[in-house]
């Protein structure tokens, strides 16, 4: 899922002529359209970046916006569509009304869209913004690329069933500002809830894939845990200032952490390109949210056998980069102390990062792109369980212990390398 475009360009180069140039990068298309500039189209381009349309509507190594990316949902694979102006395989024949129906109301020419397309969020896009977005999307150069979007198994392949799903989980209503809050917070709320579709990953889902009421409280998807975005000081953004949030969305890093997993892609493709005012608004909105009301657990004692064993492996394998104090390096190597991602009840992201490593965010504001190497091949299940248990219960952290079985399960689920035999 993580498709850092810079990294992808490099991979492409290994296969095709060894030319490495950003000029060949899809993301650049977003910046360097040569069509005559009109203000509404330019605004539409900005909205497309804010909505991160590119991320899903571009296959790995595919042409930008030509679709073909497989989204792995709990119900099966949904392949994203071609939204270029190609008349045969794209949306070149669409009217504005059809575009609006699809993006804001989840209705496509073949029936209902699957909510993998976040129309549940996009429904809140304003009339003016959806019109500008269309001004831009309709100019995307045509790419002839046929996509078979519905590969779901029965009964999920029956689009009509979505009528009921929509009845249950889709509120087809425009964004309503909260007049008791500042204009900035309302702007942030609009961006987060509509184009930003943050809840698509960060809001827990029910058994049928609909949003629960626990908005932004953290959710598991595709082998990652999208963390709690509320102001909970233990597992959420409680300790981050608004500036920490802005820095993170702008550069992919801040003094505490570095993005990993699918969030890296959201930052590289989308949030880093937002204006300062919009990022400040998003931050102000998140800081205005009430904390999730759960109290932190008690940490395991330092004498715990897993903690002791984990400390030894931490010193050997992790401390060189993360420092023996766990402090990491600002804007580069995450601080493991007081880190919401470390303390999350759900360890999916930690397991994913330790087992497979993660690409670093390479942004204009922080081009470094330092990555974490995978340790799956090197460390046994038990070692990884111990190291993570140690990290999650040291330096003021407190979170449930992990077992070797947890690691083994994750290793299989995310298809990580087996460890070399000891």
């Amino acid at each position, binding site marked *: 899922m993580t498709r850092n475009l*810079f*990294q992808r*360009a*490099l991979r492409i*180069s*290994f296969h095709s*002529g*060894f*030319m*490495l*140039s*950003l*000029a060949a990068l899809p993301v*650049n298309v977003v910046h*360097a359209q040569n069509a005559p500039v009109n203000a509404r189209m330019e605004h539409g381009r900005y909205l497309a970046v804010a909505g991160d349309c590119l991320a899903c509507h571009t296959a790995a190594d595919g042409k930008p916006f030509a679709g073909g990316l497989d989204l792995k949902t709990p119900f099966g694979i949904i392949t994203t569509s071609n939204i270029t102006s190609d008349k045969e395989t794209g949306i070149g024949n669409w009217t504005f009304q059809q575009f609006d129906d699809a993006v804001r109301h989840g209705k496509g020419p073949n029936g209902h869209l699957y909510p993998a397309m976040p129309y549940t969020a996009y429904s809140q896009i304003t009339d003016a913004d959806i019109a500008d977005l269309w001004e831009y999307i309709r100019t995307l150069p045509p790419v002839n690329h046929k996509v078979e979007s519905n590969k779901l198994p029965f009964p999920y392949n029956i689009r009509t069933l979505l009528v009921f799903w929509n009845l249950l989980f889709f509120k087809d209503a425009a964004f309503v500002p909260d007049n008791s809050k500042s204009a900035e917070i309302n702007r942030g709320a609009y961006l987060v809830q509509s184009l930003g579709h943050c809840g698509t990953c960060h809001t827990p889902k029910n058994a049928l894939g609909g949003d629960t009421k626990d908005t932004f409280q953290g959710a598991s998807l595709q082998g990652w845990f999208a963390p709690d975005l509320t102001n909970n000081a233990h597992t959420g953004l409680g300790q981050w200032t608004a500036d920490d949030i802005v820095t993170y969305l702008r550069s992919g*890093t801040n003094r505490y952490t570095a993005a990993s997993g699918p969030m890296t892609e959201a930052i590289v493709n989308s949030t880093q390109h937002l204006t300062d005012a919009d990022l400040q608004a998003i931050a102000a909105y998140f800081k205005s949210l009430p904390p999730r009301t759960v109290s932190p657990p008690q940490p395991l004692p330092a004498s715990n056998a897993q903690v002791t064993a984990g400390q030894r492996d931490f010193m050997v394998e992790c401390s*060189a*980069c993360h420092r023996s104090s766990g402090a990491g*390096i*600002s*804007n*580069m*190597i995450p601080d493991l102390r007081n880190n919401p991602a470390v303390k999350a009840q759900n360890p999916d992201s930690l397991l994913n990062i330790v087992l497979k*490593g993660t*690409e*670093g965010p*390479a942004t*204009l*504001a*922080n*081009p*470094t*792109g*330092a*990555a*974490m*190497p*995978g*340790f799956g*091949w*090197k460390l046994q299940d038990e070692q990884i369980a111990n190291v993570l248990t140690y990290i999650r219960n040291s330096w003021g952290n407190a979170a449930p212990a992990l077992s070797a079985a947890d690691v083994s399960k994750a290793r299989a689920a995310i298809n990580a390398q087996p460890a070399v035999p000891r």
Partner: protein
Amino acid sequence: MHYKRPKADVVIVGLGWAGSTMAEELTRAGLNVVAIERGAWRDTSTSFPTTRNPDELSGSIRKDILQAPVTETYTVRNRPGETALPLRKYHNLTLGNNVGGAGTHWAGASWRWQSFDHQPYSRVMERYGAKQLVDGLILQDWGASYHDLEPFYDRFEKIAGTSGTAGVINGVKQPGGNPFEDSRTSPYPTPALERTRANILFSEATTRMGYSPFPVPSAMIGGPYTNALGINLAPCTYCGYCQLYGCGNWSKSSPNICILPVLMQRPNFTVVTESEVVRINTTADKKMATGVTFVDSDGNIGEQPADIVITATFTLDNTRLLLLSGISTPYDVNTGQGVVGRAFTFQTLSWAFMFFENEYLNPFMNTGALATQIDDFNGDNFDHTGLGFIGGAGIQSLCNQGLPIGMSGLVPEGSPRWGKGWKKAFQKSYQNYAQIQGQGTNFAHREQFMDLDPTYKDRFGQPLLRITYDYNENDRRSGRFIRDKCVEIAKEMGAREIKGVSLADDPYSGYTPWDSSHVQGGVVMGEDPRTSVQNRYQQNWDVPNLFVIGASSFPNNAGYNPTVAVGATTLWTAKAIKDLYLKNPGPLVRL
């Protein structure tokens, strides 16, 4: 198949330190730059992950990161009249084989050269006169002084994140730094590395002897640092896998870490990898360069036209490329005329190898350029009257090795060669072995030069470069002088068993253990077209849109490693291109 790429503003041949530094400057100025690199793409985190990169067998022993001699090599002879033979095994010329060049695998000593090194002729004439020079020695100034280059040294250090302790800032001596260094405008970007036990013993001994020890400036980052391009660097972890390894920890300055992440984000930059430039193309009258011709990884022949051609290949290949392209006059050893291939220099190394009786030197905690040095006998920091030579060496306690395979041979002479006895000796020597290196100057000589080999050809059928080199009397005298100093210090450190060596006592060979890898010259910069290929801006005297950058421009070799001087001269030339050449294309120096 032949093909032609779209014309670029600038083509840069080779994407090591010099090429990437230049590309960053010129793309930032808005030029469309295409770099052509012989090696493959390498990325810090994915190519050199800390989990598996520390592998002594593939790194130090099999030298996987280097370009193999079977791909490209040089022929060597000691003097004119001999038949040169190709270097067929890995040798002391450690060529990179990837984007980043040798800057990816270097050990990382990060020196500013001294005023003397940039103007050796003026300084020697002023202090001693011509009588100080041995027969045949060639000495000339660069045309750019330390004062000219200081802002560029400063900038390069801030790209590299160099660690160290400043000696002189704005004319004021600083405690703990090198009192002999020329004045700097700012301190080192990151603090000096931690010292090893051997460094401390060296420091104490040389202080007692009245010398001035200081930490060698290093590419190993001394603390968290955001460099001049906005890239974050992490502090060195002293893992000890530096020389012949890429650093996956973002802790060793390299083009891959310090420049490429920014460069690769620029739409006006392209790098063509795994493609070797075989010729610089010129107009028929050889007055202007028109681009380069390269062979790509499929064996197809490509042409890259450009308005400005910059070659930044491995030092020696800069000379070869000019010779293969018929640009400027080749040096003729018989007449002393001609310039391309002239003023080839190497370095003069001396050593004291020592064993202590009962120390715990813990060499496993080390890093590439982890050394404490005295400069009391470097360059012209001491009076050479009556010594019969010029130059000298930086004398340093060098702690850059602690890996088990490499250390296993370092047992005292007479130790058992195998079995229990050897194991016992190795156990003891691992904690008791130390070394002092004298990294010595080398000045050009009329019989030290490069030309095209008449016999041996490369895989494309082009002649190999032939090196004609041996130490001269100046080297032998300075080498012995420095060797004796190394031994005196080793004694003062309290070593039990000491062996002093001056490598210049034996004929030059590309295979000598413990030798330098710093070869230079051949396309030197200078003030006079009769003795230099390029003017003070590294601009070819004959072809004004051709700039050859790197240590090939240096007419003499210092008692210092060359990389930071390469960075400074590259930035100096970049500024000349941006501020002078682009406004008024043509010769920047008119005689």
